[in-house]
């Protein structure tokens, strides 16, 4: 049984009759990194949002199985407890919400769901220092309000830092590379590579092939107009970079 099975997924926006995902199929297992590429508006981020449990989308057809369980039945926090993690494309600033307090509560919620002991203050801070190093995030940033006053790169590194703290089984990275300078791109990618493991799967959503030079995927899927139109290995990303999205778009149109 795969970690994640998306079957014929159709998704619309709530209150609107616009279908964004038009039958997505995807199977991902632990130990694997899958990249989803595609032009703007192809539905990549919608797929990430639906996996994480955003409520403004309506699934009209199809199913998502996570460890064989119906993921769509679970609230966002229940998904987090079961090991689903979404690194946001636009991490939210939360003035007044202390990073340390929030994260400790999050870590302990997830640990409790896994049947593990709550982390005491000392052990927690030790873990913070250790995991912050993975993405070169200054431990001082964890003393501030969540994302408040963080630079773009710091926000994205903070997402990967939280990923490292929560130790999910399925990590979804929604355009984590967008807007990063080359140093931050390296720091984020290094962090992700260190977190790759046999019991964790990654779904990396990106617009550009460049991220995949740093995070080398096992599988690449190309989404166009709400469907996965082509899947392959890492070479597909290189081809895509050379030929552009028009190539797969035309191919998809020809097949339809």
């Amino acid at each position: 049984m795969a970690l994640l099975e998306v079957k014929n997924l159709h998704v619309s926006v709530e209150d609107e009759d616009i279908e964004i995902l038009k039958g997505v199929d995807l199977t991902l297992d632990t130990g694997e990194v899958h990249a989803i590429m595609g032009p703007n508006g192809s539905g990549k981020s919608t797929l990430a949002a639906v996996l994480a449990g955003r409520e403004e989308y309506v699934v009209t057809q199809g199913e998502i199985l996570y460890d064989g369980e119906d993921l769509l039945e679970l609230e966002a926090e229940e998904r987090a407890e079961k090991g689903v993690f979404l690194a946001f494309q636009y991490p939210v600033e939360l003035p007044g919400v202390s990073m340390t307090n929030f994260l400790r509560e999050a870590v302990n919620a997830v640990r409790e769901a896994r049947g593990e002991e709550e982390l005491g203050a000392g052990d927690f801070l030790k873990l913070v220092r250790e995991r912050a190093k993975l993405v070169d995030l200054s431990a001082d940033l964890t003393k501030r309000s969540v994302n408040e006053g963080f630079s773009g790169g710091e926000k994205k590194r903070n997402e990967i830092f939280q990923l490292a703290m929560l130790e999910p089984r399925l990590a979804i990275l929604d355009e984590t590379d967008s807007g990063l300078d080359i140093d931050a791109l390296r720091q984020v990618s290094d962090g992700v590579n260190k977190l790759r493991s046999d019991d964790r799967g990654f779904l990396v959503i990106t617009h550009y092939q460049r991220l995949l030079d740093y995070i080398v995927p096992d599988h690449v899927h190309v989404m166009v107009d709400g469907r996965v139109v082509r899947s392959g290995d890492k070479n597909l990303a290189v081809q895509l970079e050379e030929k552009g999205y028009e190539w797969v778009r035309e191919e998809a149109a020809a097949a339809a």
Partner: protein
Amino acid sequence: MPTTLDTSAPAKDRFLSAFEMSNGQALNGKNASISSHREAAIQRFAELGVPTNKLEAWKYTDISKIVDREYTLPLSMNVPDVDASDLDDVLIEDLDAHRVVTVNGRVHNGLSDIGTLPDGVVVSSLADAGANHPDIVEAHYGKYADFEDEAMTALNTAFVQDGLFVYVPSGTAVEKPIYAVHLTVSDADVMIQPRHLFVVEDGGIATIIEMQHTLTDARVFTNTVREAYVGARGNLDHYIGQVESDASSQVQTTAAYHEDNSVFSTNTITLSGEMVRNNLTITPDGEFCESNLYGLYLGKDQMHVDNQTLVDHVHADCVSNELYKNVLNDASKGVFNGKVFVRPDSQRINAYQSNKSIVLSNEANMYTKPELEIYADDVQCSHGATSGQLDEEGIFYLRSRGLSEKRARILMLQAFAQDIVDEIRVDALREHMTHRLRERFASYFDRSE
């Protein structure tokens, strides 16, 4: 004997006849300056009458329906018994302070624990101060709380009997906070009119905490007037916690006046009450004054809380900071009317005003009206008012990391209130309020589940 107000007569006439009956007897007092204001005050009240919502200043707050009840006016010197254990229940834990307890507006020496004060500092009843320090009372009493346009201040001034008196002499620092525990105790519906006077002379430093409690289920209406004077280079840090019963209402008028290089800060946290109206007027009358006004109101059920503030910049080179926040749940209502007035010669004023509200339910309402009136040209002033809901994107972010929806909402509300709580510089009070806020926020979501 207490006087019961007969509701068959119009509200105004009831007070006028109660005054007739009591003047010169229950209202005699020991101080000439307090007595000397009574006649003029009752005459002005007779002209103004009880405020109704036909007046612009009372548009959203119909206090007349609260005033128009059959209250007992306790005008005698007798104070009901209060068990020490009842007091213990409301005291702030670990607050090392000069504690003064008032019962129905009168200082209760038996329950107070004022301790040792620095030389010359006075913490007593206003009635005693009238007898023991007539010169100080004469110099300040009735000088700041103008009743010309304020019927409720006129009413209070006509009926003044007692309240809290604090005096800090020149250059004296009171290290521990002065902690006033105001208790209202009565079997019958009751109306009380406390009158407080705080005088901090030049270079004096003090912190005054006032917590308002009611130890009864009866309906209570309190009409408080408070005057505060801070001399040059002085500093008065003032806190009010409004934590009365749900059957309690009040009109509370604070008039503060401060001089060159002084700081006056006041922070009002309102957690309960049927109808609460806070009038706050600050007049920084000297150069380089700093005035800080903070307020937090957490509405529930049918609560109605109205904060009216005025900073009157009559002098150049001053700074005022104002931040009021509201969280409204259930069918609660909030009103904020903040005015900053900069007089023609008051140049180089920095005045900041902000009112922010989170409205959690469809039945709750917030009315806000920030006003700047600026007649000087070299000033920096800003004001802003926002009303909205909790940021759903932020809540989803927290939930996506494993926090329940309830915890996410509580965290967001705590974060919203945090900058008011952070302005509390007394650790024990800050912790006490943090705990009360947390309980309130949790209760918002427990009921709806």
